[in-house]
């Protein structure tokens, strides 16, 4: 398999260490029955632990779908780790977290970071198919007063609606869509199965007919997946209530991705009858960022000739 989907041995060890740490935390919480006390104890355990930059992928994976206090703690941890990876992780939180407080903390932490380490994340957030992410990215760029992003924003105004159908190389019509995947039901969607006994970080594939295992990573027996091999990485994760949850908890984690769906012939035919709109939320977000960044720069609000050249250039 290619290197793109695999982390190296030292990263795998760190991932294992994060997973082992959280297993220890959760084992210690088993004796607590009150969910609030459990959450507080977990928060304290996370606070008391010493983390460094190699723990970032594991922390993001484990904590980004937790409740708000733990997500705020994640931001604090990342703010303390001054490293490009933590900057990138903070930008991801600033774009995707559902809580305005968490996003604001992440943006605050980004104020002290190099724009080169977060700009691309924020700019790509402006093109995300879920409009609130684009709005968050625009607000973050404005709060960070990242005027060097302006020229890229001018280019982005010209981009089509990210939700608009498009023709693929093989002339089929397709569309990008936000989709969600139940985290615990679809292990093998994102990870390779562990077929050898020396796989570093493994996780059991839980059965929907049995309660979830108390220990997930490095659990023995059953079908195992390799956490060090990841074909798909979610853009963000959210916990939702599941109606028919069976023996699993009602609150389950869902991972969000953007997938390209080939349209049916009927859908494609219907599309050809509708002109695409030039007004869409992602463009509004880009224009908002441009306006605010420019307002910060000049009082007369007039564009420079360079802007015009960029706007009119093919």
């Amino acid at each position, binding site marked *: *398999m*290619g*290197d*793109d*989907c695999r982390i190296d041995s030292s990263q795998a060890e760190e991932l294992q260490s994060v997973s082992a740490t959280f297993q220890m935390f959760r084992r210690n919480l088993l004796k607590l029955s009150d969910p609030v006390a459990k959450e507080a104890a977990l928060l304290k355990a996370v606070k008391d632990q010493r983390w460094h930059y190699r723990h970032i992928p594991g922390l993001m994976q484990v904590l980004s779908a937790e409740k708000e206090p733990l997500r705020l703690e994640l931001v604090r941890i990342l703010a303390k780790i001054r490293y490009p990876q933590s900057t990138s992780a903070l930008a991801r939180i600033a774009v995707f977290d*559902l*809580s*305005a407080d968490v996003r604001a903390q992440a943006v605050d932490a980004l104020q002290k970071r190099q724009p080169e380490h977060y700009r691309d994340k924020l700019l790509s957030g402006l093109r995300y198919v*879920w409009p*609130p992410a684009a*709005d968050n990215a*625009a*607000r973050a760029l404005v709060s960070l007063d990242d005027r060097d992003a302006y020229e890229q924003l001018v280019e982005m*105004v*010209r981009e089509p609606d990210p939700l608009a159908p498009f023709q693929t190389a093989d002339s089929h019509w397709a569309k*990008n*869509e*936000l*989709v*969600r*995947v*139940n985290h615990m*039901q*679809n292990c*093998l*969607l994102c990870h*390779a*199965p562990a*077929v*050898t006994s020396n796989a570093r970080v493994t996780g059991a594939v839980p059965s929907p007919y049995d309660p979830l295992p108390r220990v997930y990573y490095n659990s023995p027996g059953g*079908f195992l997946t390799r956490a060090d091999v*990841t*074909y*798909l*990485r979610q*853009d963000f994760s959210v916990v*939702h209530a599941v109606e028919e949850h069976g023996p699993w908890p009602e609150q389950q984690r*869902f991972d*969000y*991705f*953007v*997938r*390209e*769906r*080939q349209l049916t012939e009927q859908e494609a035919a219907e599309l050809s009858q509708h002109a695409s709109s*030039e*007004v869409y939320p992602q463009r*509004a977000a880009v*224009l*908002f960022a*441009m*306006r605010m960044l*420019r307002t910060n720069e000049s009082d007369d*609000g*007039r*564009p420079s*000739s360079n802007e*015009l050249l960029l*706007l*009119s250039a093919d």
Partner: protein
Amino acid sequence: MLTPDNPQLSSPTDRSVRIAAAVLLPTVFGFFVVRHIWVLPEVNRERPTVSVGLPGDTNHIENQTPVVAVEQPTPQVVQTIELTHRPVFLRVSQTTSVDAAGATLALSHAPLEVTDVGRIVADPLAFAPRSLPEREPQVLHKELADAAELNLYGDELDSKRRFNNFKLDVTAEHEKFAAKQKKVSQLATRGELARRRARTERGRRDIQAEISAALYGTADPFRASFQPLKWWMNGRIDLQGLPLAMGDDCRWQWVTTAAGNG
């Protein structure tokens, strides 16, 4: 001899007049020739092809660039204007009504309204939002819960490559494929007892492990890994156009399809 009375002789003033006339007349003539034959047509070519004139006062417009308002500024509008005015400055305003003295410009992408006479100032951001909607977390939550849910075992997930961030070095995978095919074949021979072994859970797991191990780094391990029982029952693995089937002799075989794959 030259005397002041001799009419053939010119005074210094007369000479100056003649010299000036000799120089100036062709210059003036040349100026008009150049202006009308060369400069003006060029100038006219650079003027807007759209009519932006105030009623009865086109000269006024020619001399001063009009200010126009864009109701819905888009890059296309700016581009269209840019093609007709050089340089172009468009100032857009919130005014949607046509000024009393104005005229409506219908360009290809958006209506433009002339509201004043002056410079054209291009500002596509004048209608950019001053704020963005701030949604409550529960609203976002609900919105996300409405997103299509995909399931590993559903028909929706026929290829992970359709996801925006799928990570697999596909080229390298296919390059390794030929080398690994031999190994799969050897495994297939060992798999003669596979059908018997598959009667037990342990046996099925072993088969899955063998096949997955053989296929690692050869092709998309996705289907081969997550649906061992399903493909066992179907007797076939579809690996990106590289179908693998269990033959009647209990051997894993690469199947040649009508399209010539395999």
